[in-house]
């Protein structure tokens, strides 16, 4: 592929029939050749299988078309419309969250009716305990959907990395970046296998366990399970942090080293070609343009991949965060009007969602880091 590209980039190489005419080699020609060779159809079909909201947020442009606009027309629809998409997504679920906030506050108001009872009798204590238990059940059932969404999104990150890997490594092989392709393979396999497995198998159960223990503990006036709940929370935090740091470091180092190896290989081949008699300098000059095209195309694919991942993650992450925020707001607002145990129930449920959100965001960041580092985004 590189040789084909170099052949076309050699001054005069395009105009064999008319050697007298030597138009300057254009970057767009090189990009066009690479684009015709690169297979992005799997990306397009993955995009077509996404729901209408995600495709609309992306502007209904298939990724290959987006890449074309990015490279050839200098447009960045993703960057331009990102804020609008963000606001539009937030607006779409704002009424539902406001309704839930009102519901949580309504429960607090209903519970405050119990405070009219006499404190001495056992009825007050029994009624209060059972009311908060029911409220806990209600909150758990309302966050159930979000928990299922979070699990599905985490699995979706693994699926996306399985889809992105052949596309990106195919592009890297095509562009002569064998070491980068190997680094991408390592990063994506580690993400979809080890990291996602650890998050869904350890972090999610721990955060749910901590949340359920915290809610159960909030029912009692004397905390007995809060230590376990706190332990689960701390364990989740540490696992997510360590995984993110280790993965980013290993993938980053691997990507940088692989990029350097590929660069050295390309430059040494250029040096070898430059030493050839007669046509050496000519081919070497063409290679410079070809390498520029390769770097540009790699970065274009990387940026498209990062933006695509970002748009895909946007909705579930925002929804999860907004729900956690609603529970936090309900916890704060119901404290003056309702039972403090009810406020604790809301706070524990919010903690549970926030821990899952942290794992989800970490997995998303790792996906974006893998794409960015392997495709050399931001590298000169």
């Amino acid at each position, binding site marked *: 592929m590189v040789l084909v590209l170099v052949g076309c980039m050699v001054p005069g190489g395009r105009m064999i029939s008319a050697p007298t005419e030597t138009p300057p080699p254009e970057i767009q020609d090189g990009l066009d050749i690479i684009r015709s060779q690169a297979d992005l159809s799997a990306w397009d079909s993955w995009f077509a299988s996404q729901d209408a909201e995600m495709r609309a947020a992306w502007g209904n442009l298939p990724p290959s078309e987006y890449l074309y606009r990015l490279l050839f027309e200098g447009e960045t629809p993703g960057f331009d419309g990102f804020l609008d998409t963000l606001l539009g997504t937030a607006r779409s679920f704002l009424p539902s969250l406001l309704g839930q906030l009102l519901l949580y506050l309504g429960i607090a108001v209903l519970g405050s009716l119990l405070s009219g009872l*006499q404190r001495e009798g056992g*009825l007050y204590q*029994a009624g209060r305990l*059972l009311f908060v238990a*029911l409220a806990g059940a209600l909150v*758990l059932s309302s966050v159930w959907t979000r928990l299922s969404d979070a699990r599905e999104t985490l699995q979706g990150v693994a699926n996306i990395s399985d889809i992105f890997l052949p596309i990106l490594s195919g592009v890297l092989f095509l562009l002569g970046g064998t070491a980068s392709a190997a680094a991408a393979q390592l990063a994506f396999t580690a993400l979809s296998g080890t990291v996602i497995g650890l998050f*869904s198998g350890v972090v999610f159960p721990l955060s749910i366990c901590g949340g*359920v223990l915290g809610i159960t503990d909030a029912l009692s006036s004397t905390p007995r399970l809060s230590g376990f709940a706190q332990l689960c929370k701390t364990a989740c935090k540490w696992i997510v942090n360590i995984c993110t740091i280790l993965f980013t470091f290993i993938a980053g180092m691997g990507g940088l080293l692989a990029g350097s190896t590929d660069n050295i290989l390309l430059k040494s081949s250029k040096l070898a070609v430059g030493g050839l008699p007669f046509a050496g300098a000519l081919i070497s000059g063409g290679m410079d343009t070809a390498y520029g095209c390769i770097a540009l195309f790699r970065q274009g694919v990387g940026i498209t991949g990062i933006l695509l991942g970002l748009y895909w993650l946007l909705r579930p992450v925002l929804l999860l965060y907004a729900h956690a925020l609603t529970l936090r707001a309900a916890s704060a607002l119901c404290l003056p009007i309702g039972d403090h145990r009810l406020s604790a129930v809301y706070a524990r449920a919010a903690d549970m969602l926030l821990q899952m959100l942290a794992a989800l965001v970490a997995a998303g960041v790792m996906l974006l880091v893998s794409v960015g580092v392997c495709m050399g985004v931001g590298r000169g």
Partner: protein
Amino acid sequence: MKITSLLAVALFGTALTVLLKQNRPEQAWIAGLVTALLLIGMVAAELTGIVSAMETFMQNYGVRGDMLSGMAKVVAIAWLAQFGVQAARDAGQSALAAQLETGGRVLLLACALPSVFSLLQLGAELIGRAAP
């Protein structure tokens, strides 16, 4: 306004009870009981409205409605049982009051038990589903 009628009933009942208490204490107790029942009846209608509005909310946002009706039942049972206990104590029937209090607690438990079990089941299911 609802609060004016509530206030009127309460004031009238109190005045009647105070008047009757001097000569007919047994009738004063009945007058107090009837007034309290009237007040509860007037407030119960409002409470039903609040609960049905919240249930509509819950249906819109995909939350189980049986929990809310359970919570409203808990509040109502606790209130009514407390009222009965107070009435019995006012009449000097402390043994009856204690029995009623126990009965109220049993009813509270019976009302909330399915939902409490469903909370435990939900928690166990969540942990079970989250486990690999």
